[in-house]
C-alpha cells in the first residue's frame, strides 16, 4: 500500500521531470546520445520502493504505479509508458534481489539504479537509436547507466534515508538500521 502511494508521488515527480525534460531534450537530442543523462529521473521510483519495502515485487510495483500516474497526468506514452516502467522496475528489482532483500545500503541502491539504467537502455535503443552508428549507442548506454546510478540509485538512497530520519517509515526495516 505504501509502495503504491510512493509510486503515486514518484509518478508526479516523473511528470514534472518530463515537463522540465522537454526543453532539455531539444538540446541534448542533438548531442551524440547524451540524452541518456536524463534517464535516471524515471528510474528512481523502483529503487526507492525496493529499498524501503524490501519485499519481492515492491520495486516493480512502485515503478509501474509511477508509470501509470505519469500516463494519467497526460504524457504521450499511455500504455507504452507502463511497459517502460515495468521493464525499468524489473531492472531495479533484480538489483535488490541480488542482495536477497536483506540490505538497504548505498551499494544496493547503486547496483539497482545501474540495472534499472541497463533496462532503460535495452528498451530505448531499439525504439530510438536503431538507426545510428555504434558510437552513439555506446554513449547513450553509458550515460543512461551512469544516470541510473547517480539519480536512480544514489539520489533514491538519500531520499529513503531522509524519509526514515523524518520518521515516515516507522513500519519498515529501513528505520531500524544504522
Amino acid at each position: 500500500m505504501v509502495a503504491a502511494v510512493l509510486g503515486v508521488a514518484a509518478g508526479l515527480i516523473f511528470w514534472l521531470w518530463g515537463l522540465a525534460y522537454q526543453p532539455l531534450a531539444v538540446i541534448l537530442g542533438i548531442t551524440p546520445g547524451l540524452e541518456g543523462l536524463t534517464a535516471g529521473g524515471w528510474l528512481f521510483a523502483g529503487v526507492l520502493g525496493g529499498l524501503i519495502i524490501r519485499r519481492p515485487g515492491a520495486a516493480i510495483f512502485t515503478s509501474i504505479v509511477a508509470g501509470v500516474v505519469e500516463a494519467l497526468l497526460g504524457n504521450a506514452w499511455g500504455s507504452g509508458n507502463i511497459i517502460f516502467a515495468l521493464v525499468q522496475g524489473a531492472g531495479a528489482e533484480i538489483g535488490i534481489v541480488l542482495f536477497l532483500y536483506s540490505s538497504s545500503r548505498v551499494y544496493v541502491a547503486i547496483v539497482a539504479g545501474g540495472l534499472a539504467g541497463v533496462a532503460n537502455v535495452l528498451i530505448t535503443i531499439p525504439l530510438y537509436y536503431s538507426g545510428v552508428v555504434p558510437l552513439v549507442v555506446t554513449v547513450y548506454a553509458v550515460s543512461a547507466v551512469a544516470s541510473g546510478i547517480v539519480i536512480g540509485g544514489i539520489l533514491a538512497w538519500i531520499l529513503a534515508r531522509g524519509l526514515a530520519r523524518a520518521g515516515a517509515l516507522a513500519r519498515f526495516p529501513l528505520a531500524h538500521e544504522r
Partner: protein
Amino acid sequence: MSVAAGVEARGWHWQFSGRTTPALHDLSFSIAPGERVLLSGPSGCGKSTLLMALAGVLGADQGVDAGDLLINDAPPDPGRRLTGLVLQDPETQVIMERVGDDVAFGCENFAVPRLETWRRVNAALASVGLKVGLDAPTASLSGGQKQRLALAGVIAFEPGLMLLDEPTANLDPQGVLDVVAAVTRVVNETGCSLVVVDHNPAPWEQLLTRVMTLDASGGLVSETSEYPRGKRSHVSSPRLPGDLVMATRDLVIGRPGQPPIAVPDLDLRAGTITALTGINGSGKSTLSLTLGGLLAPQSGLIMVGEKLRQGLRARHVPTPHRWPARSLVRRVGNVFQSPENQFVQPTTRAEVGLGLRVAGMGRADVAARVDDRLALMGLTELSGAHPFTLSGGQKRRLALVSATVTSPHLVVVDEPTFGQDDNSWEDVVTLLEELASSGSAVLMTTHDPDLLGVADSIVSLSPREVAS
C-alpha cells in the same frame, strides 16, 4: 442487522517498537454491547492507539502487547467483521473513485454477494443522509460528506462496534452537525456499540451514555460521571488598534483555473486580530494566499501601509506577490493549514531560525531569538528533532512560531486551531495575542467558535462569483 459487540480488557499493555515506555498500560475495563462511550484524555495519551487496537489494525510489526484485549471473547481482527473504524482526515477515508464503489468496498472484502452488496450500499447511503447518487465522483464531496461516506462504507458491512477517531476535527460547523446526526441515526437504527474520541465532545453529548478517561501516561481508565466541557475561555488583555497595515478595495481573487471570487473590503490595522469565516470553499485560503503575497489577485486594489512599504521598490508596493522572497519574509508571516507543507529545514531549531537568517540577522542574535521562541512554545526539548517527527500540536506551534519569528507587520494564519487540544489551543491563542499586542496585524481564517471570541473583528466570506 448487526449484533452489538462488547469489549473486555484485562491488564492490557501496548508498546510501540523502538520506544522505551508503553503507549498504553494496565488497561482493565469492559464495554457492554450497545454502550456508547466517549474516550477522553489529554493529547498524545494513546486514545487513537486504543481505537486502532480495537479495530485490529495495530500489526505485530508495529509493537508488542501483553494481557487481554477481547471483542466478543476473541482478540480484535478486522477480518471478523465486528468493528468499523472512521479516522480524522476525510481525505484518507476515501478509497474509490465513485461513491457507490467506495461504500461497496468493505462488502466486497467480506465476500457479500453482489445483489446484497448493492442493497446495503443504498441503505447505508440513505442512513447517513448522503443523497448524491452512486456514480458521483468522491473527489467532488465536501469534508463533511466524505466523513459520512466513510461512515456509510463502514455500516454497509454491519459491524457491531463503531470506532470513531476525531471524525469531526477537520470539518466546518455544518459538517460537524451532519456527521453527528448521521452517527446518531445509524446507532439508533442498528443498536451497535460506539466509542468516540473527539477534542470537541460537546456535539456528541446527547448520544453518548458513558465517559472513559485515559491519563497522560496511557494508563488507568477511570470512569467520569460528568461530561467534559471545553475550558476554552480565554481572557484577553485589551489592545489598541494602530495604523493601517494593509487594506483592500474591490478585490477579486482566484486560483489559476478556478472561478474568481469577490471579497468584501478589508482594513487590517496594527495591533488587531481579524477573523475570516465562511463555509469550506468560500475562498478563505485563497484570500490568505493573496494577502500573504503568494498569489496574484485577479483585480482590485491591495493598499500597503507605511510600515510594510518601507524599503520596498515603489513599483513593487501594490503587488505583494511580486515582492522578493527576502523582503516578504521580513514583512509577512504566512502560516499554512497543513504544517507539513511549510517545513523546509531538517531540525526544529533550523526551522525557527530560517526567517531570521534569510533576513540577514547575525548568528548570535539568531540563536538568542530562536531559544526564546522555542521556550515560549514549549519546544526547547525538541530543538534537534526533525520537524516531521513532532506530534500534531507541536507541528502546529512550530509552524506558527517559525513563520512569525521575524516579528512581521502582517501575520496571515490559516485555521490555526484545527485539531488542537485545550493546552495547545491556549498556547496558539497566546502567541497570536502576543503578536497583535506587539504591533502586528493578524488575519486568521477559522471555523472555531471559541477562537472567534478572541478576534477584534470578524469578516464573513460568502461564495460570490464574479459575473464574467
